[in-house]
């Protein structure tokens, strides 16, 4: 563990004339979990492909496990495990055969791989599934098997591209728990996600990527403190404008446009819900309490608030 697991310096990647990654730099410390957040099309997957040496950067430098990419990518990947966005397990094989065949790609001996298979399957919560065909496994089981496959070479660094997309809550929690166990063993983890709770739970540090640039970086707490007010009040429901006049009604959005600015520094309207961001929410809460029909939720600001503030609320396709 002499060299840092991954160092990315001023990475640029164009597809044709279109810049996808526009000058990003970050580095991973051994044993940390670093999460790349970003809306669809932000350049997360392209960044990961560059970090694995699967595509040549337009400019910039990447060192993976002390090896320069893409020149020494193959050697660097010996110490890396990858969980791709799409499952690409071998459908013709059993769970055990998937691990055996994948281990061979790392130049491992059959006997050594076979000796690891029971512990890998048990780590992934797949005891007794060694001889199960892939088609008989659920989505969550396939994901866990893909994780086990990424661990077949006992890597120092694990790279996961949206590891829990499409999983039910039970399956997501199990993946999180396994990743925490790996971090506790000293593995370094780089993951991409667009689930903020996932990043907040797992990551030592996060980076928000948008339009090919890193627009925020730090621990989840730092990023929240730096970029957004500490308190959020979500206001929704029907608004009866004045207690006496019940005929004049509107939405929470109408209420916000008329009143929010006098209580908070910043507010946003999304559909019929108003988001108020405040340092001192007491006056706002007192006002809301007196309104008829409006309902509200007062909570601390989280990463999702930061993410939406920095990357906007419009849909990304």
């Amino acid at each position, binding site marked *: 563990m002499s060299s840092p697991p991954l160092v990315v310096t001023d990475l640029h990647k164009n597809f044709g004339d279109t810049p996808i990654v526009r000058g990003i730099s970050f580095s991973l410390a051994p044993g940390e979990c670093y999460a790349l957040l970003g809306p669809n099309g932000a350049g997360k997957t392209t960044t990961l492909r560059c970090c694995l040496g699967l595509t040549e950067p337009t400019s910039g430098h990447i060192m993976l496990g002390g090896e320069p990419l893409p020149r020494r990518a193959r050697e660097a*990947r010996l110490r890396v495990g990858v969980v791709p966005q799409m499952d*690409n*397990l071998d459908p013709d094989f059993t769970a055990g055969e998937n691990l055996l065949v994948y281990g*061979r*790609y790392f130049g491992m001996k059959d006997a050594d791989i076979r000796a690891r298979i029971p512990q890998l399957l048990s780590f992934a919560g797949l005891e007794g599934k060694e001889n199960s065909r892939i088609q008989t496994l659920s989505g969550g089981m396939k994901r866990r098997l893909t994780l086990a496959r990424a661990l077949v070479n006992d890597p120092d660094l694990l790279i996961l591209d949206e590891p829990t997309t499409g999983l039910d809550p039970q399956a997501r929690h199990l993946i999180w728990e396994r990743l925490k166990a790996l971090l506790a063993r000293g593995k370094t983890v780089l993951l991409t996600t667009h689930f903020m709770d996932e990043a907040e739970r797992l990551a030592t540090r996060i980076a928000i990527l948008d339009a090919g640039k890193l627009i925020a970086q730090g621990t989840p707490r730092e990023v929240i403190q730096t970029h957004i007010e500490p308190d959020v009040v979500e206001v929704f429901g029907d608004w009866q404008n004045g207690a006496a006049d019940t005929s004049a009604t509107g939405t929470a959005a109408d209420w916000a446009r008329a009143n929010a600015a006098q209580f908070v520094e910043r507010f946003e309207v999304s559909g019929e819900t108003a988001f108020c961001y405040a340092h001192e929410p007491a006056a706002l809460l007192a006002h809301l309490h007196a309104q008829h029909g409006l309902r509200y939720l007062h909570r601390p600001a989280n990463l999702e608030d930061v993410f939406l503030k920095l990357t906007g609320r419009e849909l990304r396709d």
Partner: protein
Amino acid sequence: MRWLPVWQRNLLVWRKLAGTSIIGNLADPLIYMLGLGYGLGKLIPEMGGMSYLAFVASGTVCYSTMNSATFEAMYSGFSRMHVQKTWDAMLNAPLSLDDIVLAETMWAASKSLLSGICILFIASLFGLTQGWLWLWILPIVFLIGLCFASLGMIMTAIAPSYDFFMYWFTLAITPMMLISGVWFPADQLPAIVQTLAACLPLSHAVQLVRPLMTGQLPVQTLLHVSVLLGYIVVAYLIAHTLLQRRLLK
């Protein structure tokens, strides 16, 4: 030898499906060989100095090798590359695209070798091989397999979907089969067609295999082998470049 685990992976899949695979690979060429050999053989007492069945048998070795390598490199290769994303998984391991393309080409050639061996074995049961020179057909079959596997990999590299492969079959493989002396001697065809056939690999394959099957040395061996080798090298390099462009962009 980093490509070997990838070749082994395909072998393991093949072993699971070997029963249907062997029957499928063998039934078609055998039906043609025996059907045409016996059926037309009744009308044609001899062709090219041998029984029509023997003539067709040597053609079938070449044609079934070509077909088997082409199918494997295109349909199965495309499944692994594009549909199942098996290659993506391999590229995340310490394998390069070179390892994968080499392994896939070697695998398609190996599978076609098996198909050629089966036809040869059956031909020898029917007494259609003479002497021991025919054993030289085995390395030649492997060359034929490498040649059509490499050509097939070019198609795989540019294919948007499975339907695309029909072009290769209807515009290249089938016409080549008809003008390369597989079912009848090519020397009765118009001169321009003969010239065209002489530029294509299958006619050279046939001219190597046919004499060896009946215990004779081929004429112009060096020329025929060189043409096959030339096709292998050029097609492989083109396929490799196109795949690099498609997958590592």
